[in-house]
């Protein structure tokens, strides 16, 4: 898994699936359409999808992605070009959906207070090491391990099971 470097967008605690991707857009089936509505319901972030650059990284507080099992909430960020999410804690279903789509999610206690929107950060998914290049501070996230790592390396669950079938 490649090292990521990007500009941070910092969010608070309890960024739930309706804030990430509101229920009214659930009937959409095209991920590039989903991307236009990412974070739209977070107050002050209505135009998030227009302001981000590919490679940007989402940083958040505790309980990121709580709520619905909607995979749209992962796909909208992935197809917007966000390279990953680092949060103090990540809700279980969101974590699983992200891994299954080869979208990087890391849990890193304390991170949301130590990074500001606009800071340049670098992430090593293999080791969980995170550097805030703007301040020089370093943090240690829980690295991805075991089966989840194997799935991530293949690019997602479907690619992983296809590799098993081909073998």
């Amino acid at each position, binding site marked *: 898994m490649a090292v990521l470097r990007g500009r941070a967008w910092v969010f608070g605690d*309890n960024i*739930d*699936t*309706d*804030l990430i991707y*509101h*229920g*009214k857009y*659930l*009937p*959409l*089936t095209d991920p590039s359409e989903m991307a236009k509505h990412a974070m739209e*319901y977070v*107050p002050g972030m209505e135009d998030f999808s227009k302001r981000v650059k590919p490679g940007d990284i989402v940083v958040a507080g*505790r*309980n990121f992605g*709580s*709520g*619905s*099992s*909607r*995979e*749209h909430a*992962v796909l909208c960020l992935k197809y917007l070009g966000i390279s990953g999410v680092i949060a103090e*804690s990540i*809700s*279980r*279903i969101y974590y*699983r*959906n992200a891994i*299954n*789509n080869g979208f990087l999610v890391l849990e890193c206690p304390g991170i949301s207070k130590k990074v500001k929107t606009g800071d340049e950060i670098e992430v090593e998914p293999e080791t969980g090491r995170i550097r805030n290049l703007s301040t020089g501070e370093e943090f240690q996230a829980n690295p991805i391990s*075991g*089966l*989840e790592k194997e*799935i991530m390396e293949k690019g*997602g*669950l*479907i690619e992983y*099971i*296809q590799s098993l079938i081909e073998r």
Partner: protein
Amino acid sequence: MASNKLGREVKAGERVWLPLDLIVIRDFAGPNAILQFEEVTGGKGKVFDPERIAITFDYQVPAKDEKVANNQKICRDFAERQGIKYFFDVNAGIGQHVLLEKGLITPGSVVIGTDSHMNLLGAVESFSTGVGNTDIVAGFILGKLWFRIPQSVKVVFNGRLEYPVTSKDVTLFFVSEFGGDGANYLSIEFSGEVIDSFSLADRITLASMVTETGGKIGFIVPNEEIKTFLEERSRSKVEVIDPDSDANYLEVREYDISDLEPLVSCPHVPENVKKVRELKGVKVDEVFIGSCTNGRYEDFKLAYDYLLKVGKEFNPKVKVIFTPATKEVTLRLLEEGIAKAFVEAGGVLTNPGCSLCTIGHHGILAKGEVLLSTSNRNFQGKLGKGSYVYLCSPLTAIASAITGEITDPRDLL
């Protein structure tokens, strides 16, 4: 449970591939899964076993717009093409409840579905969990799926609840004790005197909101009454699974909740729980009784008996919406005159389904409006930008529908 399935010991933290007894898709995320399945298999794929797949429509039923209608058609066509055995159309109700009533869920069964409240089936000791569409596609192909065996926490509720305190108040107490991520990745085992006294509906209420603490599943061992229900419905012998006597719990939490009082979860996170009397005087614009958490017959019967006892009509300024979980619940409410009483009191009775929990169908709120709901989530803007949602029991809901402000149900008795 996983050990039983795999025929070997498994440990918490281990990753295992479990065979799936049932894969459930809905008119929400189901179409995404089907389109993804067609893409992955080049349009020629056959599902691993059409008798172990169920399609339940509950999201925006009957279809509320063209896109939803088209999505439902994608599911109908897929069911026909693949010969899917269990298909429930727009008249049936909330998926998990329909499957339970049809006898398709038993203790120890492994079920995945495109609904984060799939795990309410832990109320009958099924390992059911909500997943995204990629997991569904993998399940369609392989008939099994990866899981990380969760660590267990034992939660014991002792004591005796005093009317009008309900299982929903116990549930909100549980959510406030654990917080929004306090049970993240964990499995909960509920037991104790209070749980023993719980009906199936009560157990469902509690198990459903394990999701709001991040928990994977909340198991409750069926008692004789619930075992009989499951046997009648499944027309087969049911074996409950007793927890290992030497089970290794991450934590055991015991509570005596005899002095619990009616609780309410305040905007905009479920963990923000307060006593109902602390919110006294907050005006409500809308009241909702229903959802996968509180949409069973017993929930409406509680509200109905309270309404009769207090003998009043709803406040004319309040929109009061009732949504039964299933067709079976609807029929019983009609037969027993309960639905009639609600409508006569000024309420709106809708068809069974997810109703308010899926935005864009029933009861959307205007900016600044307040909803008091028996459902499970009060996320910011979920039911309309700038609105406020409080979560409570059917009794707090009905009392507040009468007065027009958040009301402790004890105050009208």
